[in-house]
């Protein structure tokens, strides 16, 4: 085994306690989402809250379970902004028409 491979093997980011806490936080947020679905509120507010919680959950999964928090900034900058940019581009393509349709439905 080369020195580089040995260094990789010894690289053990995070602790069991940390991962269990992240898991608990994710479960709590899932419970909150399910409860929210039964609250009487406008669809837009509910959608914003649900997507907000999902983005936070994604952040936890990416950071701790997928170890992105322990990687070099270069890898993070290569993956996350690219994904956000691509999703925004898809959203931008449908956004004007979606808003128009939403207002048409409201009337």
């Amino acid at each position, binding site marked *: 085994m080369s020195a580089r*491979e040995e260094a*990789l*093997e*010894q*690289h*053990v980011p*995070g602790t*069991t306690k940390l*991962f*269990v806490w992240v*898991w608990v936080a*994710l*479960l709590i947020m*899932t*419970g909150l*989402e*399910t409860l*929210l*679905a*039964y609250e009487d509120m406008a*669809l837009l507010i*509910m*959608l914003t809250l*649900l*997507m907000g*919680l*999902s983005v936070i*959950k*994604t952040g936890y*999964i*990416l950071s*701790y*379970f*997928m*170890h992105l928090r322990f*990687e*070099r900034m*270069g*890898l993070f900058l*290569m*993956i996350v902004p*690219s*994904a956000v940019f*691509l*999703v925004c581009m*898809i*959203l931008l393509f*449908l956004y004007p*028409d*979606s808003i128009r*349709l*939403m207002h048409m*439905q409201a009337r």
Partner: protein
Amino acid sequence: MNHTEAQPIAEITWTGGPSPLAVNKKKLGMWLFLLSDTVTFSSLLIGYSYVRIASPDWPRPFEFYPAIVKATLMTVILLTSSLTMVLGVHAAHKNERGRAVKYILLTMLGGVLFDIIHISEWINLMINEHVTPFHNPWGSPLLGGAFFGLTGLHMLHVTIGVIYLGVIAWGFGSKRFAAEDVEVSGLYWHFVDLVWMFIFPLIYLINVAPK
């Protein structure tokens, strides 16, 4: 050039200075694949959101039981399988092969349970509620296409993940694969979990049946 003296490709080392990302090529390849898969699922989810807004008669068929209870349980199972996976990666990096394989097998069990519950949900919708990809008794026929298309692609990812983890568990247990292979398979599994974090609210919670 004398080919017999040529260096094997696997032994060619990076000579451009310090590695900018400090990850091995398998991990980098998996991250790039996941980036492309992000586009696939985002396109489907955004396309689904568009047809949902565009359809005034979009049905909201999901009752608390069985649909929401099952979907919440499936979310809990996937999150738990992600925990066992990350613990498996942790054990693999510490070179505790037996423990790592046990955690990977537990993760696979989570995946199989997820598939079983999901298939029972599909059967319930198809047989009891008469929902097909092109028809449903309540309103816009696009509901079936969106539901089966999105959850079907996700279920396919889970099933492929279970097979992939099976190969990794066998290879790591028999010392054919290294810890980095377990870590790369973990990235795939966590991504499948991550995608579900968007499918669950957008497909199920937004379409909860009115009281």
